[in-house]
């Protein structure tokens, strides 16, 4: 009872502070200095129609590399700590089969979801979305395959190959930017087209495809290891 009262008082105090902040705010006219630089120079320099993409991939590309590295570390730690059940010993978990309608529907829908994910990360420089979103959509396709068939085993080696190769290519393109263009992860190593056309923005679609494949492979690997953990007792 006392604990709840304390929590209520805490929430009330926080609400009061936020209300004060809300009352005293002043509407900012125009953009900040960094934001106005991105919106003015971004399309001209990177030739990408989506300014968020040009910031994420080019101006702050090193941060994106760090995020991908963190995701890789998380996936490998989960794979390390959640032990897989051995091949010889029978898996104790009883999983009920899914209905026939779901199995038939998933045969149509899993490739469609993969296709949507590829569309999202290939079109990242033109429309909302990009590598992380496309990777999450691809992992959702893996989820659907698991739901339709609980003992689904396809693509386990492909995931590990994709994970390693895409990481190598990402750093490779970044290093190529040092030699062929202005700096690490510069997108002008390929010819930049016109803003808004499909083949434009230099290396941004290539980098986003690599990020999408890597994120999709890592999230799928996490799902595989979450599914295959040994049951307690």
């Amino acid at each position, binding site marked *: 009872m006392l604990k709840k009262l304390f929590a209520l008082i805490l929430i009330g105090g926080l609400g009061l502070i936020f209300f004060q902040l809300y009352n005293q705010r002043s509407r900012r006219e125009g953009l900040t200095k960094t934001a106005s630089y991105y919106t003015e120079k971004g399309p001209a320099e990177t030739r990408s129609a989506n300014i968020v993409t040009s910031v994420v991939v080019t101006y702050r590309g090193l941060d994106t590399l760090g995020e991908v590295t963190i995701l890789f570390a998380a996936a490998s730690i989960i794979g390390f700590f959640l032990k897989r059940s051995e091949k010889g010993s029978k898996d104790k978990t009883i999983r009920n089969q*899914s*209905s026939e*309608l*779901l199995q038939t*529907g998933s045969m149509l*829908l899993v490739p*469609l979801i993969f296709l949507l994910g590829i569309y999202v990360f290939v079109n990242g420089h033109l429309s909302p979305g990009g590598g992380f979103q496309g990777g999450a959509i691809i992992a959702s396709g893996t989820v659907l395959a698991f739901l339709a068939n609980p003992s689904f085993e396809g693509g386990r080696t492909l995931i590990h190959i994709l994970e390693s190769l895409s990481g190598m290519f990402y750093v490779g393109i970044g290093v190529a930017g040092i030699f062929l263009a202005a700096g690490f992860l510069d997108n002008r190593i390929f010819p930049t087209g016109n803003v808004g056309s499909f083949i434009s923005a230099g290396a941004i679609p290539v980098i986003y495809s690599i990020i999408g494949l890597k994120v999709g492979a890592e999230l799928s690997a996490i799902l595989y290891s979450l599914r295959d953990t040994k049951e307690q007792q």
Partner: protein
Amino acid sequence: MHILHISGAITLLAGSIFLVLGALGVVRMPDPFNRIQAGTKATTLGTILVMSGLGMLHPSWLPKLFILIFFIVITNPISSHVLARVMHNLQVPLWSKKDQLSEEEE
């Protein structure tokens, strides 16, 4: 051109009325089986009508709207079927006390 806009807006209105009726069915129906029936059928039709109305208002959006209708028409029955199957297997109580789908004959 103007006729197309007005008919698109009316189709949109019809679709939103179906959405409201579906949601009302979800609130008012007595047991989960009736609710899933009202909530899936009416809202699927309502979404299709809303997308068609938007397609009449903006003819250049038609490809994306067709893809959207296609996805909804495929995915919606699958999810409601799986949920209804689970409810039947776990013997959720019916409102009418008489199970027409029960396996054992008397």
